[in-house]
């Protein structure tokens, strides 16, 4: 590649990359000089933007204080947000739309909204098609934009702004309409950089909160994947998140397993998008998963790797119960619909039902012991049945459905991949998507059913396979028939979390770094 030649369309990207990665300092060619100058020029523009924003905010606030002396509250909270703005993604997208309109390219004289094509693209990525081609992946593309706005270029100003940011409350909305057919992918969300551990629907069905190993919880629109808020007060992996039944608050927590070196954050944090951290719940001293808000909104329960379960009052933060009935680390937890009882699953393979406020053991379910470790548990919304799934080294990937009253086994579902010989394709890139449940970490095998969820009408159960399987299967435990299988879309990566939308028309499933929203109703 001769540096003195003109730029050609064929090699333009390579030329720019070459110069930006390895700038030649000695007698630079005209090409190198141009590229370097442009780089500096635009970097300075970005710095200007940050500086100006800081001054603008300062001036607007100073004027407010000058002219309204009685308004003391404003001084502390009047910070204007740019970086951590709930609509920050919208801003970036809108910004690009402006470029489209200002650019006046070709025949399109008016800005063209592209939500339809974007959604198509997103869906395309979901089924693994759009890695190449005319349009680069939406996630990569947005990620790049985030980077260019998000860190060095905005520098100190953005750090300062985001650290004291206040937020308007999250928008309310309705569940996306079910216009397609069963299994149609609506959104494939991959803004979080590391494994997604949990994804939960807001009570109105319009938003998703997803927790990740990247130490964040992100709130985004289920219909479009548009990021609205990022919660980043955790200093360790976030393993679980849940909404309060009124949709105003969220609770999240996690931490890494204490076998690993280092300081861990096992705090359970209650927060809202508008006011940030509201309360920290204390008690657990080890890896937590899952955390669930009681259906009546009064309590929060968390299952811990130290074999204990904790129940707190949501309002005061008081620790009500510490349940110590299990012999081994907890893997799953679910509330009864009346908020009186809790069912917990454990690596000791006994599923236990107990009273939430007293910790009194009500029922032990032992029928699953022959299958290995119990990995997840779910209580049917009508309160009558419990589904618990199993897996681990040398065990079966089955889901048991049993009576919540008598503990009698009603059905054992065996539709998931059983063999440990399934290959795990991909290697490096899928490293981050290895399943994470404590039982699995201990055993080193991905076989099992790692997530299970009842449909809101209590008719069907959805179960998510371990690595090598990666499918989500919907089946009817009463008629004992399979309704639907969503094949793996992520190289067989484990399904770590499953959640039906409140109306039952959609499902949120997480696999690796992808959260997929798809239609779960015909």
């Amino acid at each position, binding site marked *: 590649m001769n540096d003195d030649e003109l730029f050609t369309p064929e090699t333009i990207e390579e030329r720019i990359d070459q110069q930006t990665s390895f700038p030649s300092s000695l007698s630079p060619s005209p090409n190198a000089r141009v590229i370097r100058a442009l780089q500096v020029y635009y970097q300075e523009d970005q710095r200007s933007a940050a500086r100006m924003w800081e001054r603008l905010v300062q001036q607007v606030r100073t004027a407010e204080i000058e*002219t309204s002396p009685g308004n003391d509250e404003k001084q502390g909270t009047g910070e204007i947000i740019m970086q951590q703005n709930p609509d920050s993604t919208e801003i970036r997208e809108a910004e690009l739309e402006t470029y489209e309109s200002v650019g006046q390219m070709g025949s399109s004289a008016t800005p063209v909204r592209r939500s339809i094509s974007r959604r198509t693209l997103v869906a395309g990525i979901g089924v693994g098609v759009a890695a190449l081609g005319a349009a680069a992946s939406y996630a990569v593309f947005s990620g790049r934009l985030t980077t260019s706005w998000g860190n060095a270029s905005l520098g100190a100003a953005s750090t300062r702004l985001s650290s004291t940011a206040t937020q308007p409350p999250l928008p309310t909305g309705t569940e996306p309409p079910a216009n397609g057919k069963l299994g149609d992918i609506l959104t494939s969300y991959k803004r979080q950089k590391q494994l997604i551990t949990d994804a939960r629907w807001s009570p109105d069905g319009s938003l998703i909160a997803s927790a990740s190993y990247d130490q964040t919880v992100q709130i985004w629109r289920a219909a479009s994947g548009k990021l609205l808020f990022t919660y980043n007060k955790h200093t360790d992996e976030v393993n679980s998140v849940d909404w309060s039944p009124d949709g105003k608050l969220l609770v999240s927590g996690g931490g890494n397993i204490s076998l690993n070196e280092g300081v861990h954050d096992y705090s359970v944090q209650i927060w809202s998008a508008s006011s940030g951290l509201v309360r920290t719940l204390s008690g657990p001293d080890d890896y937590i998963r899952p955390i669930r808000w009681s259906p009546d909104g009064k309590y929060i329960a968390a299952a811990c790797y130290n074999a204990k379960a904790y129940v707190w009052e949501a309002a005061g933060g008081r620790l009500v119960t510490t349940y110590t009935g299990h012999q081994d680390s907890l893997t799953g937890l679910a509330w009864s619909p009346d908020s009186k009882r809790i069912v917990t699953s454990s690596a000791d393979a006994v599923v236990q039902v107990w009273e939430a406020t007293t910790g009194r053991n009500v029922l032990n379910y032992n029928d699953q012991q022959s299958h290995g470790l119990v990995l997840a548990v779910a209580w049917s919304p009508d309160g009558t049945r419990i589904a618990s799934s199993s897996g681990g080294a040398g065990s079966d990937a089955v889901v048991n459905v049993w009576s919540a009253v008598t503990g009698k086994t009603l059905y054992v579902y065996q539709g998931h991949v059983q063999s440990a010989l399934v290959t795990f394709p991909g290697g490096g890139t899928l490293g981050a998507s290895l399943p994470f449940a404590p039982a699995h970490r201990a055993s080193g095998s991905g076989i099992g059913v790692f997530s299970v969820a009842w449909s809101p009408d209590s008719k069907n159960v959805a179960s998510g396979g371990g690595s090598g399987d990666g499918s989500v299967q919907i089946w009817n435990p009463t008629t004992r028939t399979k309704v639907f299988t969503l094949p793996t879309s992520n190289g067989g990566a484990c399904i770590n979390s499953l959640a039906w939308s409140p109306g039952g028309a959609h499902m949120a499933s997480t696999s690796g770094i992808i959260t997929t929203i798809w239609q779960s109703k015909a």
Partner: protein
Amino acid sequence: MQQRQPRSLSPSDETRLAHCYSLHALPLLAYVRQHTPSREDAEDIVIEAFIAAVEQKEASIFALTEREQLAWLRRVAYYRCVDRYRRSARYPTVPLEKSEQLLFEEEHLSPEQVALHHEEQALLQQRLSQLPEHYQTILRLRFANGLRCSEIGYLLQKSEGAIRVLLSRALNTLREISKNQSEEKNDERR
């Protein structure tokens, strides 16, 4: 001091301002820089334009379309530029000691290098402003936002090939300019 209108912004207004700023700050800065001698002056004027927008009480700028917003901001900025030309004859813009300090702090460069750098940047700015607007858009998306040609093409509804052609043309134009300039300088030295 001039008495300002109260500007008690509601949270939604704050969000709108942030949105509006994110949309228009950079295009507006590029525009203002064509009319001002220094980046610092340009920054001042952009801020003034946004403050004027906030102070706009009768008809909120946020109610306008994005294009109208930019047009409005440009017009305000233009008048501020003119105003600044008038006043600059009477008021020095930045105290010399202060500017010297700023330069050293920010650039870690000697005064000569700073001057050279400024000259280069000023020339580039001038050349860029002569390029058609869609070239500037592509350059900005490539160098400020770090997008690939395929991504720019997707945004602007053009093929990747078309973007590659436009981008290489834009760079060749700028390259020719800078080449001619260095030749001119060499000639001057001889």
